[in-house]
């Protein structure tokens, strides 16, 4: 405890006297009803214990940072072009993306798939019309994956780079393709590195690319965990996401509570499969939790997150290795992309920088935030990427942000706020626990309803002016300048290729179907159908057989739709 009880009493008394005295006098003198700004004192901390609440960086409860100090920077973007080249990307057919990535000198894959692929439909499915190759690459069979990875040919082996796949419901099919592509190139699959997103629960809550109901979906993630544990030791089987839940409208505490509840469900999968928690959780990662413009709240949230998860891993799951108590990959405060505006978009530069400062003040290194033209269209221009990079450099080298880890530790305000966010989060987690956990809370529609309500609350506040968004609902008079910009360098995605990608992919798919051995396809699909009905079977070997026979994603998912059924979303409004 920092201050003894007597000292805290004196401070509390002093604050009361100040409120009745000088503060009230100022309010009365200027005709103010309430103070426009608040003040915190040590009394707000009570019997706060530094080692219990914060500790040293890299030590339980990890409030300041997951590690004793910042990790060395590997593969940091050194130019706007490299920045764009490392980003989540992909469009059109695999040829379009392969050629672009070769041109950009990209060394690793951070793959965006189109919606038909993510939702388990082939490019020639009627429901895929208009969607093929739009939000990412169209992948139907192993042939597509093989062509995509030609971007590395002659430059690096598959065991020398890492691949991120933003894929969820059909994750194991994509992993099977990744393994098959490695084998074709003579690369030992046990040396494959990367991270599939594979977080189905957030799809039900916020992102929407689900296929099957929750229970069989969780079975498939169990398959990923156990298969990777045995056969792909360098691959992270999951990236547990708060980002999408926040962007869909959840509050900070809801985002943390729902994500950590989901994480608990995923850890339980491994335990129920008979694995030692210290053995498999090592490879669990988190994706960021998005953010907001509420500067101090986001700093507090980032600190609380580390503490909450550390307690869960240590106390609830009894993990022994401290390495397994950390929120691997989560990072510190980040911007909420939904906070960026299309109106007066250059203001997004300021927004990104504010949150970049928050990142540096919550254990991370400063960041420039996502480039300012994020809401203007798919991908970021090189100019906006350059400005984001330079902003981070200015914060780091000129303002020296990041040279002290968690400099706000001990602040009466920030520590109170951290405790408050933690309490709110734990309270929501208790409610989810009472419902039977995340899966039950999703089946009943409760989580989805909460997100919708928070989203509506946010919008009402914007609409009635309670929540100010500069240039949108305030400071929009005729005297304001609509400072705008147009992209100066052409965006790397060729719009013509994006337009006719569907036509070209249909031709690719037809060709594969003509050339493959359809008997092999049918027999591999039949074996998959049989295995899917047995919960104890790991489906990965069956996916491998199907994938190597050039069965399509749609064909494999239709087999599973037949066995598992499809998720029927609950009406939450």
């Amino acid at each position, binding site marked *: 405890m920092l201050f003894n009880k007597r000292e805290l009493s004196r401070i509390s008394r002093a604050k009361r006297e100040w409120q009745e005295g000088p503060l009230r006098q100022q309010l009365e003198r200027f005709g103010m009803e309430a103070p426009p700004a608040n003040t915190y004192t040590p009394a707000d901390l009570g019997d706060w214990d530094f080692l219990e609440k914060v500790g040293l960086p890299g030590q339980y409860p990890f409030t300041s940072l997951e590690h004793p100090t910042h990790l060395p920077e590997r593969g940091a973007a050194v130019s706007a072009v490299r920045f764009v080249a490392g980003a989540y990307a992909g469009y059109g057919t695999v040829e379009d993306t392969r050629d672009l990535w070769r041109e950009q000198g990209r060394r690793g894959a951070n793959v965006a798939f189109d*919606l*038909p692929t*993510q*939702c388990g*439909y082939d490019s020639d499915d*009627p*429901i*895929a*019309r*208009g*969607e093929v190759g*739009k*939000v990412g690459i169209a992948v139907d069979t192993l042939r597509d994956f093989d062509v995509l990875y030609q971007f590395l040919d002659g430059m690096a082996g598959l065991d020398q780079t890492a691949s991120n796949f933003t894929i969820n419901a059909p994750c194991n099919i994509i992993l099977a393709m990744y393994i098959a592509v490695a084998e074709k190139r003579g690369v030992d699959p046990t040396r494959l590195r990367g991270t599939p997103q594979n977080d189905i629960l957030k*799809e039900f809550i916020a*992102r*929407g*690319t689900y296929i099957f109901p929750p229970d069989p979906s969780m079975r498939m993630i169990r398959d990923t965990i156990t298969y990777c544990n045995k056969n792909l030791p360098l691959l992270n089987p999951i990236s547990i996401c708060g980002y999408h839940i926040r*962007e*869909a*409208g959840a509050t900070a505490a809801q985002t943390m509570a729902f994500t950590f509840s989901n994480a608990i469900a995923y850890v339980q999968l491994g335990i129920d499969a008979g694995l030692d928690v210290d053995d498999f959780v090592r490879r669990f990662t988190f994706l960021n939790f998005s953010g907001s413009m509420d500067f101090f709240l986001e700093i507090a949230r980032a600190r609380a997150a580390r503490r909450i998860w550390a307690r869960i891993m240590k106390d609830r799951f009894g993990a022994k290795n401290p390495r397994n108590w950390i929120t691997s990959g989560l990072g510190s405060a980040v911007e909420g992309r*939904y906070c960026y*505006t*299309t*109106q007066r978009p250059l203001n997004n530069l300021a927004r990104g920088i504010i949150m970049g400062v928050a990142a540096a003040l919550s254990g991370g290194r400063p960041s420039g935030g996502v480039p300012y033209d994020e*809401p203007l*269209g*798919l991908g970021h221009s090189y100019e906006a990427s350059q400005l984001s990079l330079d902003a981070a450099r200015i914060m780091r080298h000129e303002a020296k942000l990041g040279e002290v880890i968690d400099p706000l530790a001990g602040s009466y305000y920030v520590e109170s706020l951290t405790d408050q966010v933690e309490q709110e989060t734990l309270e929501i987690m208790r409610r989810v626990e009472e419902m039977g956990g995340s899966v039950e809370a999703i089946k009943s529609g409760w989580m989805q309803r909460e997100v*919708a309500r928070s*989203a*509506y609350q946010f*919008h*009402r506040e914007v*609409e009635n002016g309670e929540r100010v968004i500069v240039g*949108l609902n305030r400071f929009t008079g005729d005297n304001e300048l609509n400072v705008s910009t147009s992209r100066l360098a052409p965006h790397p995605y060729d719009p013509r290729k*994006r337009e006719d990608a569907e036509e070209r992919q249909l031709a690719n798919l037809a060709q594969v179907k003509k050339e493959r051995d359809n008997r092999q396809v049918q027999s591999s699909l039949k074996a998959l159908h049989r295995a899917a009905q047995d919960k104890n079977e790991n489906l990965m070997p069956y996916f491998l057989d199907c994938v190597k026979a050039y069965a399509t994603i749609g064909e494999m998912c239709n087999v599973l739709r037949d066995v598992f059924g499809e998720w029927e*979303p609950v*009406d*939450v*409004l």
Partner: protein
Amino acid sequence: MDRDRIVRVLIAKPGLDGHDRGAKVLTLGLRDEGMEVIYTGLRQTPEKVVQAAVQEDVDVVGLSCLSGAHNELFPRVVELLRESGKEDSLVLGGGLIPEEDVPRLKEKGISAVFTSGTSIHAIAEYIRQNVAP
């Protein structure tokens, strides 16, 4: 428009796009503006959207798409509405719609496109002023 009659609205997500924050917010918001609003949920084919519009006998069909498939899907819904005898429906678009696509959508029968930053009240007023009597 007769201010006493209750406007019926269908908010739909055609195609595979799973971003439904705007659609849900608009559903709740238009209800607070006194309209009867049905939200279809995700993954609606144009045929399913029109089926719902007919079944629910709506005055307004609001289409939300953020995946870039709007040029394909929105006109298709208009076409099917006409074939089903609902050519009087007021069809509105929203989501991620580039400026340059709006004129063509309007040509195809989308009355207006409302994207990020639009107020619910403004949309409600537009509906009240433009819905078929």
